[in-house]
């Protein structure tokens, strides 16, 4: 339908013959400058809040963020050494890693077979199952947080890593299943057929042929569940009580209490968290979106 419209309007505004022939992808100088201008401004906006945080983390006083000019004269890494030696930083690191890695491991392990099954097999109840997976992903935290709190406190799992991992799995598992379905869809079905012809069972095909091919997809699913668990705020704030068990998302808040706000230490901690996470992110970023929209870009 769109092609006919293009043809129709094409005759209407035929470009004047005198215009110099310009090849696709080339613009005039003004266009190039404008593109660079907009992208530079956008980059500055993207960069500034982070750069500002790094800058503030170098000021030793907790009110320096209100007088950034004073930081120039007295820049120091004091905040960093204080955070690393005097606070619970490494306890928080441990908690964050335990919870995130636990969620990732369970999420990916459980979701892989399901992703494969919904990618290749059409069974009665298939559509309903997919709908349940989709609906589960859009659960507002508010739906589960109260019942989860009650259930975990009945089971004495409040303030434990296991409790938090279980809660995170409620979102990580359906999410990974969706993601992996999208990825398995991009692996040619002929491979399965070849495996079946050679006498492998559906499960054997999955383990021996498809899983090795799906490694990038598994990595993306793992990364997503890790990041989601690592950055989660609401459940972690509510379910963790002991400040040695805090994850970073909770620990960072604890620098600002009603009585005292150690904003300099908070900034330093924030930077210490941000550096490894963003470094890791950049390593895998290319695969991220392909994983998420695999089905979408294909069509």
């Amino acid at each position, binding site marked *: 339908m769109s092609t006919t419209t293009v043809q129709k309007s094409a005759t209407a505004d035929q470009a004047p013959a005198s215009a110099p022939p310009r090849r696709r992808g080339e613009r005039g100088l003004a266009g190039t400058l404008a593109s660079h201008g907009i992208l530079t401004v956008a980059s500055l906006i993207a960069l500034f809040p982070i750069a500002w945080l790094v800058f503030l983390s170098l000021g030793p006083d907790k009110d320096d963020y209100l007088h950034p000019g004073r930081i120039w004269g007295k820049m120091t890494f004091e905040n960093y050494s204080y955070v690393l030696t005097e606070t619970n930083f490494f306890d928080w690191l441990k908690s964050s890693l335990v919870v995130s890695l636990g969620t990732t491991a369970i999420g990916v392990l459980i979701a892989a077979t399901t992703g494969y099954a919904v990618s290749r097999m059409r069974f009665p109840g298939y559509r309903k199952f997919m709908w349940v997976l989709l609906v589960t992903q859009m659960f507002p*935290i508010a739906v589960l947080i109260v019942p989860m*709190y009650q259930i975990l406190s009945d089971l004495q799992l409040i303030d434990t890593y296991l409790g938090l991992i279980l809660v995170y799995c409620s979102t990580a598992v359906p999410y990974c299943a969706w993601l992996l379905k999208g990825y398995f869809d991009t692996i040619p079905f002929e491979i399965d057929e070849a495996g079946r012809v050679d006498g492998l069972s559906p*499960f054997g095909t999955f383990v021996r042929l498809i899983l090795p091919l799906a490694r990038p997809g598994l990595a993306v699913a793992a990364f997503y569940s890790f990041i989601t668990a690592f950055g989660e705020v609401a459940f972690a704030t509510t379910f963790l009580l002991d400040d040695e068990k805090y994850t970073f998302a909770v620990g960072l808040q604890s620098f600002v209490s009603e009585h005292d706000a150690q904003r300099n230490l908070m900034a330093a901690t924030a930077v210490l968290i941000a550096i490894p996470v963003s470094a890791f992110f950049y390593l895998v970023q290319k695969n991220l979106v392909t994983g998420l929209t695999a089905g979408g870009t294909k069509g």
Partner: protein
Amino acid sequence: MTVAVQRLRRSYQRYWYAYAMIAPVVVVLGVLVLYPLAYGFYLTLTDANSLNTARTIGVNEIEATYKFIGFDNYADILWGETAYDRFWSHFIWTIVWTAACVGLHYSIGLGLALLLNQKLRGRTFYRLILVLPWAVPTFVTVFGWRFMLADGGVINSALDFLHLPTPLWLEDTFWQRFAAIMVNTWCGVPFMMVSLLGGLQSIDRTLYEAAEMDGAGAWQRFRYVTLPGLRSVSSTVVLLGVIWTFNQFAVIFLLFGTTAPDAQILVTWAYYLGFGQQPRDFAQSAAYGILLLAILIVFTSVYRRWLNRNDQQLAI
């Protein structure tokens, strides 16, 4: 009879692999999602709060004393006294918030993706910088924004320097909302940008050449080649964007805590009812949760139906 048994057996032989393979997820969803959900729904039919639920104080076990009150919680939330202040004002703000954020995410993301999709010197570099807000965890960047938005922080200093008014970003309701949308837009654009860039790159180059041969101008190529080519990616990321923004907890919670009642969207308001006040109102908080879920399910069903009518498939 035998036919039915045979059919059953054949169906079992045909599908048992599929059912075995989805079994782990079904079990996990049943235990970790459906059971809590059912329990949560039961709580909404009671008057449970932190004073009458079962709890342990020291060595004393106190039995739960809350009672069943039917649908009173829902009635109270939706049309009880002061329902406007408690529910509808947050509802309207949540809709405005979602529409504004997703609109800004999509339009800015698409604009940047189009710019990055040209042959341009240094576009890999731009791309790496522009992804930064996505790479750093939200709970880290929101604190950065709080430093900047504080009265006397860098934003107000800059505005003051330019002789512009310096709003109380974190205290005045209108500016709280404005700041929340601003911060969330900043956080959400990279995802849209990268997704749409992926979509742009998957559009067949020859379509553009054909359109250009036919004399289509830049706008016509955008309207009749680019937009249709992006349709399936767009429908997916817009749905995800709406769901994520509607449920966005971290940005508002970390910017304002529980101090700004008028800037709370429904999700953070439900959290406030259940965990940010004393006594904790578990029943009402859970009822908000169920209402939120209902809103999202209705929205998603309508959205899907609308997509199907337009002959598009949702990628997820």
